[in-house]
């Protein structure tokens, strides 16, 4: 009787295990299917950009050709013309200056702000921290009219230095908020140990907090970089001559003339404008992960 019971139990146990592995296999297959669908979905626009940028103007304009492939032979003319006969390089230079300055200003302001708000408890510090975050919730489409008055008043209208003044209103609140969270996650004993070891507040910040919170700081930097590189509304409103224009608005305004769209060059410009963020993301992501796992294996 007992052997029969064992015999009956054995296949049941086996089937449980195989249904588990079947479940797992189905989960994997389903996730791969959806991942592939989404990857295709998100890669179509960049692919379309690359294809269009490599075509000649004639082919782009020709209605009968297949838009998904380059039929008349690859050409780099779009890039050449863009770089030599338009203000693209000026836009690029302006964007780099603006972005680097904005990231630098943002990091200095928000690291100091986050350290004092997150770590040095003082009267009203938590209300102030919430208040800073609330300012981030006001959209730039609402702010650009009053900001126009301010930028005009300080004499920076139609000057990319004005962007360096206004972008931090978008980046500082959010970056401060991210970093308050990071600094607060650092155990309190760490600053107490540093205090006893003889560190002042500035040394505590530079020698302990910044290195320990590096992943958070890099995340904030990526955010500030993205906002300032891709900003559209403010430069649209505050800049109007080509020598002061940045990539986002400059490419669009100089390559669309009335109802004439220079599709090839627009796509080439967009590709080149997207390259620096791509490179920086790739580079900082490595750093970001290295920061997260520092010391886990070997110092």
């Amino acid at each position, binding site marked *: 009787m007992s052997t029969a019971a064992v015999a009956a139990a054995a296949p049941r146990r086996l089937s449980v295990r195989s249904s588990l592995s079947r479940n797992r296999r189905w989960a994997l297959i389903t996730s791969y299917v959806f991942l592939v669908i989404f990857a295709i979905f998100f890669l179509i626009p960049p692919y379309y950009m690359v294809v269009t940028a490599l075509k000649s103007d004639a082919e782009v304009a020709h209605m009968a050709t297949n838009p998904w492939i380059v039929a008349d032979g690859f050409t780099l003319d779009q890039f050449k013309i863009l770089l030599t006969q338009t203000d693209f390089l000026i836009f690029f230079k302006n964007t780099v200056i603006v972005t680097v300055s904005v990231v630098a200003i943002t990091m200095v302001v928000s690291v100091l702000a986050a350290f004092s708000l997150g770590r040095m408890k003082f009267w009203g510090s938590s209300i102030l921290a919430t208040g800073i975050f609330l300012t981030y919730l006001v959209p730039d489409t609402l702010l650009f009219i009053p900001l126009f008055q301010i930028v005009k008043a300080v004499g920076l209208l139609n000057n990319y230095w004005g962007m360096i003044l206004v972008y931090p209103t978008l980046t500082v609140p959010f970056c401060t908020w991210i970093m308050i969270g990071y600094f607060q996650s650092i*155990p309190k*004993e*760490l600053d*107490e*140990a*540093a*205090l*006893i*070891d*003889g*560190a002042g507040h500035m*040394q505590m910040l530079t*020698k*302990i907090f910044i*290195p*320990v919170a*590096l992943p958070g700081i890099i995340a904030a930097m990526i955010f500030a970089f993205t906002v300032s590189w891709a900003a559209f509304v403010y430069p649209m409103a505050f800049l109007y001559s080509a020598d002061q224009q940045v990539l986002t608005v400059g490419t669009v305004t100089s390559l669309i003339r009335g109802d004439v769209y220079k599709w090839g060059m627009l796509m080439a410009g967009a590709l080149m404008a997207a390259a620096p963020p791509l490179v920086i993301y790739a580079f900082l992501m490595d750093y970001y992960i290295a920061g997260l796992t*520092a*010391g*886990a*294996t*070997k*110092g």
Partner: protein
Amino acid sequence: MAEVSLRNVVKRFDDVDVVRNISLDIPDNEFVVLVGPSGCGKSTTLRMIAGLEEITAGDIYIGGEVVNDLPPKDRDIAMVFQNYALYPHMSVFENMSFGLKLRKFPKEEIRKRVAHAARILDITELLDRKPKALSGGQRQRVAMGRAIVRNPKVFLFDEPLSNLDAKLRVQMRTEIKRVHQMVKTTTVYVTHDQVEAMTLADRVVVMNGGVIEQIATPQDLYHHPKTRFVAGFIGSPAMNFLRCRLEQNGAGLRVRLSDAIGLPVPASQSARFQALTGKELIFGLRPEHITEPRRNDRDPQCEFAATLDVVEPMGMETMVYFTVDGQEVCGRVDPGSATGPGETMRLYADMDRMHLIDPQSGAVL
């Protein structure tokens, strides 16, 4: 090297008095342990000595100097935290040398001191590692190393062993004692573990509800607790407390626990308790003083019978639990003599070790 003194120290958070008027003198080189249940104010007291908490009232002296308004770095103290608080981005060497570097010690001196401390703690091979690559015990050693290299006036330990597993805790306890014997620095050590307190301390400070219940050597604390709290807190399993009435017993006195059990007060103590005759008191006796009848010169009046509820064999001894007048009592008997649960056993109370406690004030009489 310095003595530490607290004079009428008070700490108030909002409206709550966490530490109420504490005075304490710690001579040079002494190892003092502050012990008590959570929320008794022991950690706050330590943090006030460290300068991490401001004091509401009173004075704290380190080496004869009032340090009330001195920041932690100027008090010449070193502290070991419960969660080690190692700097995660620095190697063990950098962790240990950080304080010296900030104080601008010459490189050669730093290297010498770190090497010396690493030798004491046996962590020389770990100096290049990051904290994440260390085990709990190793991290604890590094945290101690960071304190030792500074060669401070006072060591402060805030529950340093609570994060370690039981075996490692015993090992590190011995280690801390060994290190103290080597470096001979005044030490204030906070723990909630009475075994740690008893094994490490030159003197133990028992705290409860923000006040000091008793300051004494471990032996003194065990044999002569001053309050019911101390009597119950020190020793494991805890002392048995039973309602009793003191009554006349011929020429002597007797502690009446129940209708069946009345135990004679030793003649040597009768005179002391004479005035309390007829009063309702609390009788205290440690489990280790309730045994099977084992002494040859024993007083037969101290024997009684009990029906055991629970029997817990521990190996070298067996815990027996029974009730007297509805109150649970624990005894520690020889494993061979214990009967089973539900059975009756002859037990002997070592009345020379008894305590009588005033139920109102909680004072040991």
